[in-house]
């Protein structure tokens, strides 16, 4: 068990920079998730931590030791690959025990450790089967078994649930988190699925084009997105953006969008006149006929206890999440009231959130 520290890590493939100035610390026993769209450099970062790829520059420390240029075998980490990489020419037991065999462990001890891992993962009944006939979920468990049997310093997992169908993925999410709570092993988990990330992580790093846009606990990432990218990537439906042009002084507590005045969290910095975007989560919108921002209902999506109502406003389409009891009809005129303490203000040029009472000095990444 150990802390993972990544310092100004860069990785280039020729002219293309896959990872730019990555910095983060995964504390001992933490479940850390790297989240981002396809091609943003998640796998590349993970492979560098594992020692499968050498960084162009930067440092990686595992448990305080600089391992940047050490071979994968010397790092004492376990890696779960997206496609599991179970050796097809070995049965389940041999697959799980493969790494122990390398350490020259006596066969009795290997068997004991494999049996224990199998018990934790509840796969005792398939130990002597060939891996080729296994279902996706069982393969997943065998891959995990291969990782936990070694009792490594930390686990690295690259979209380990990516190959499973969505129903099963949900189940495995719970199992994985349960396993982590029992083993308390430092884990780095890569995914592009925000639901997986939000439900499992202690901390999340949201990546975009090789850059970590925000690093923090899931609640913080959701409530205080540090950039428009994060605000847009997290949440379903994502955050609404109301685009406007204004300059605002430090201490301002309201924004003027055309002739509509919206209360916002007190700003902690000056904003020179520029293009801005006001970010509102759908659940922070309520219908209020007295509200100054008005629009007409375009349609609604029924989700059981809640519904997503799409409203056309002068600032573009806005999606609101409301109780499904209040019925709305297309074409109906509605007023929209925002929960003002939850609003984010973004500089549209840089995409960064403006510092405010909500985003306390949040200059992340």
């Amino acid at each position, binding site marked *: 068990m150990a802390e993972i520290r990544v310092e100004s890590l860069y990785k280039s493939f020729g002219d293309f920079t896959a990872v730019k100035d990555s910095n983060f610390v995964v504390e001992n026993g933490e479940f850390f998730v790297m989240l981002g769209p396809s091609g943003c450099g998640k796998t590349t970062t993970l492979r560098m931590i*594992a*020692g*499968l790829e050498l960084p162009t520059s930067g440092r990686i420390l595992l448990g305080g030791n600089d391992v940047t240029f050490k*071979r*994968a*075998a010397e*790092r004492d*980490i*376990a*890696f779960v*690959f997206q*496609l599991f*990489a179970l*050796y*097809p*020419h070995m049965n389940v037991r041999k697959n799980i025990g*493969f*790494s122990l065999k*390398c*350490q020259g462990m006596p066969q009795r001890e290997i068997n004991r450790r494999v049996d224990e891992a199998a018990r934790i993962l509840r796969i005792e009944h398939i130990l002597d089967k060939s891996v080729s006939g296994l279902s996706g979920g069982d393969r997943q468990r065998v891959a995990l078994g*291969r990782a936990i049997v*070694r009792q490594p310093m930390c686990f690295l997992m690259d979209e380990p649930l990516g190959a499973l169908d969505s129903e099963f993925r949900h189940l495995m999410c719970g199992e994985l988190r349960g396993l982590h709570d029992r083993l308390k092993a430092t884990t780095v988990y890569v995914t592009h699925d925000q639901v997986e990330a939000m439900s499992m992580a202690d901390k999340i790093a949201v990546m975009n084009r090789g850059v970590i846009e925000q690093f923090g606990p899931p609640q913080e990432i959701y409530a205080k997105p540090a950039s428009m990218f994060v605000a847009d990537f997290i949440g379903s439906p994502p955050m609404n953006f109301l685009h406007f042009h204004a300059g605002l002084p430090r201490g301002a507590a309201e924004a003027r969008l055309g002739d509509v005045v919206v209360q916002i969290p007190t700003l902690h910095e000056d904003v020179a006149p520029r293009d801005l975007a006001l970010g509102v989560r759908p659940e922070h919108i309520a219908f209020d006929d007295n509200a100054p921002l008005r629009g007409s209902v375009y349609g609604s999506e029924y989700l059981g206890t809640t519904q997503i109502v799409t409203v056309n406003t002068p600032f573009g389409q806005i999606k609101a999440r409301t109780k499904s009891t209040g019925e709305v009809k297309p074409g109906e005129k509605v007023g929209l009231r925002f929960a003002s303490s939850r609003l984010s203000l973004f500089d549209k040029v840089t995409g960064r959130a403006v510092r405010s009472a909500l985003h306390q000095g949040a200059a992340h990444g």
Partner: protein
Amino acid sequence: MSGASTAHSVVEPSAATKRIAAFLVILYAVITMVPLAWIFATAWKTPPDSIAYPPKVVFDPSLEGYCNLFTTRSRQTQDYIAELGPPQGTCDTVTRQREMVIVGPSNYVPRFINSLIIAFGSTFLAVSLGVFAAYAFSRFKIPLKDDLLFFILSTRMMPPIAVAIPIYLMYREVGLSDSALGMILLYTAVNVSLAVWLLKGFIDEIPREYEEAAMIDGYTRLQAFFKVVLPQAATGIAATSIFSLIFAWNEYAFAVLLTSGTAQTAPPFIPTIIGEGGMDWPAVGAGTTLFLIPVVVFTVLLRKHLLRGITFGAVRK
């Protein structure tokens, strides 16, 4: 394909189509088997039967072909034969009926052993070298990789006869002519290009994650190669070995040119089996029949892999 859906399935061929297909396959098999069957039959004929016209399909089987294959004989007078003791073994009897006596073993067995050594030796070398080269080409960044691969393949583009004379002169100069080592090196050189190309395709298909997983688990790259890559490349190795072996086993042109005595292989030897008054066809038939056995056995042993391998990795997994 489930049985129930057969009747209306658009994918499953109809019963009639299948019957026609089966008929054509059998017909083709029969046509290709005729020359082989003729060779097997000839091996059991007597020399007069083997050149009888019209050809004899029904005949009394005789061991004369096999006896002649393994022995050298000389003609003797009847008086001389009469003075000899009782014949020892079938071949003695058969030979004496032709007024001849066995004077010693023929060269067939040593030639056959030469073939075994040279074909299996060169196959082993070509596949071993090929699998390492293919792995390197598949996994590492190599400068001018594509050019190198093309260069390797280009060695097979010219007809062997184009290089036969230079090789003959070279071998004579360095003392490799008529040596098993020379032939092994030559066949290895020819087969290694095939091996690299075939095996590279197979190794490309093995996800790198397997080796990476092994390397994270503490194995070195070489250990990962032997424990993880090689077992998964078994299909390709089997297919490549068979192709290499068949080439080296059957090769005739170089063998004729470069071997004459000690290192001569079976292919150039078999046609030189001359009997009295022309070719000894039963002996040739017998020699050819026996010559087929090693390749057949080898192929049957690796057949399981070959059937999967012959698709060149397209439907592996």
